[in-house]
C-alpha cells in the first residue's frame, strides 16, 4: 500500500505520532482505548505493552515478508502477533502484577487489535526492517499518548485525584495529587472538597470522553484545512491582482 522510498525514514516515524495517529485520526483500536483508561497509569502501561507488541511484530513480519506465501499471509501475521502478546502477558504477570490484574483480558485481546494487524498488513509486509521498526515506534507512541491523555481526563474527572506510582510501584508510596477531590478528611470523615463526577469512571463516560476527543481532533483538522484553503485562495487572488496590475501598467505604458 504505502511503500516508503529511500530517505523517508523520518516520515515513517513521525506519521504515526500526530498526522496519522492510530486512535485519533485513523480511529482504530477503540476497544482497549475505552476499556483500560480508567486511570492514567493503566492506560500508560497498556500503551507501553502495546508499543512493544507492535514494534516486535512489525520487525518480525518485515523480516519474514519474502518467505511467507501470499495465501497464508494473515494467519502467519496472527501467529506472530499472538506469540508476542503471550510473551508480553507473561512478562506483565511476572514483573508488573498490578498492571496485569487491572488490564485483565484486554492484554490477550491485543491479538485481534486492528492497529497491530493493520500495520503488519499495510506497512511491515511491504517495507524494510528499519522502516517497519520506526513505523511501529511512531504508531506506538501516538497510541500511547492518546490513551494516556484519555486516562488523565477520566481519572481526574471521575475520581477527582491523579495517582502516580501505584501500578509502577518501584519508588515506594504512590503520589496522590488532589485536583478535584481533597485527600485530607474533615471531622466527619468526608473529604474537604469533592467535585468529581463518577460517571466518567463508568463505561458511559469512556464513550463520552473518546467521542469528544475525536470531535476535537476533527475540528482541529477541519480548521487547518480551512486555513490552508483560505491561504491558497488568498495566494491565487494576489497572483490575479498582480497580473491585473501588470496588465494595467502595461496598458498605461501604451
Amino acid at each position: 500500500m504505502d511503500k516508503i522510498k529511500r530517505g523517508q525514514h523520518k516520515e515513517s516515524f513521525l506519521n504515526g505520532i500526530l498526522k496519522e495517529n492510530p486512535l485519533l485520526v485513523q480511529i482504530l483500536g477503540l476497544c482497549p482505548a475505552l476499556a483500560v483508561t480508567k486511570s492514567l497509569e493503566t492506560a500508560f502501561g497498556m500503551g507501553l505493552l502495546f508499543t512493544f507488541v507492535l514494534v516486535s511484530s512489525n520487525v518480525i513480519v518485515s523480516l519474514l515478508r519474502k518467505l511467507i506465501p501470499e495465501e497464508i499471509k494473515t494467519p502467519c501475521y496472527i501467529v506472530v502477533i499472538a506469540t508476542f502478546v503471550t510473551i508480553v502477558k507473561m512478562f506483565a504477570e511476572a514483573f508488573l502484577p498490578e498492571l496485569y490484574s487491572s488490564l485483565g483480558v484486554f492484554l490477550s485481546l491485543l491479538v485481534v487489535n486492528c492497529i497491530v494487524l493493520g500495520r503488519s498488513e499495510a506497512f511491515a509486509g511491504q517495507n524494510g526492517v528499519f522502516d517497519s521498526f520506526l513505523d511501529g515506534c511512531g504508531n506506538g507512541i501516538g497510541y500511547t499518548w492518546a490513551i494516556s491523555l484519555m486516562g488523565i481526563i477520566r481519572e481526574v474527572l471521575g475520581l477527582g485525584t491523579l495517582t502516580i506510582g501505584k501500578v509502577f510501584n518501584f519508588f515506594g508510596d504512590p503520589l496522590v495529587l488532589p485536583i478535584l477531590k481533597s485527600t485530607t478528611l474533615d471531622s466527619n470523615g468526608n473529604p474537604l472538597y469533592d467535585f468529581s463526577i463518577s460517571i466518567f469512571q463508568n463505561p458511559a463516560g469512556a464513550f463520552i470522553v473518546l467521542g469528544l476527543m475525536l470531535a476535537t481532533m476533527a475540528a482541529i483538522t477541519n480548521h487547518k484545512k480551512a486555513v490552508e484553503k483560505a491561504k491558497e485562495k488568498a495566494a491565487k487572488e494576489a497572483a490575479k491582482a498582480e497580473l491585473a496590475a501588470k496588465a494595467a501598467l502595461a496598458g498605461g505604458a501604451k
Partner: protein
Amino acid sequence: MEMIVSFILAIVSYMLIDNVVLSRFYGICSFIGVGNKVKSAFSMGLAVTFVIMMATLVCYPLYFYVLVPAGIPFLDTLVYILVIASLVQIVGLFIKKTSPSLYKTLGIYLPLITTNCAVLGVVQTNSDSQLDFLTSLANGLGTSIGFLVVIVLFACMRERMNGYNIPKAMKGVPIALIVAALMAMAFMGFGGMVG
C-alpha cells in the same frame, strides 16, 4: 430446576447487565463500523452469534481436556486465535457450498469476525475465569444475543440520525460514540436486576 434458573439468569446478565459492547467493550470496531445500516447490522450480529457459539463449543474442550492435561495452558491465546481463524474459513466455505443466499448476507462479514474481539474475548474469559461448561455456554449465548440486540438498536438510531443537522466536527464516529454513551447509561439501569 435450579440449574436451569441459574443458566437463564446467567444468560440475562451477560446479555443486558454486562453487555458485551456497552460495558465490556468487546467488538467496538465492528459496532461502529457496521452499525450504520439496520440490515447489515443484523447480518453481522447473526454471523457473530454463529461464530461465538462454534468457538465456545470447540475451545472449551480444547482447553480443559487438551491444553491443561498436556501442561501447556499458556499457549491458550495462540490456539484460540488459530481455531477461530480456521473456523471462520471453514464456516465460510461451508455456507458458500450449501446455501449461496445465506452466503450473500453473511459472507462478507465473516472475514471481519476473525478480528472481532467479542469472539476471542468470550473464549478467553471462559478459560481465564475457569467457568464450567454450562456457564461458558451461557456466556457465549448471552454475549452474542447482547451484541445482536445492541448493534441493531444502535443502527436504528444512526439511521434516524442521518437527517439531522449535526456540527461538522461531530459527524461520523464522534456522534456515534456519544449515542453509544447514552445507550450505555440506559443499560446501567439493568444493574442490580440479577442479584
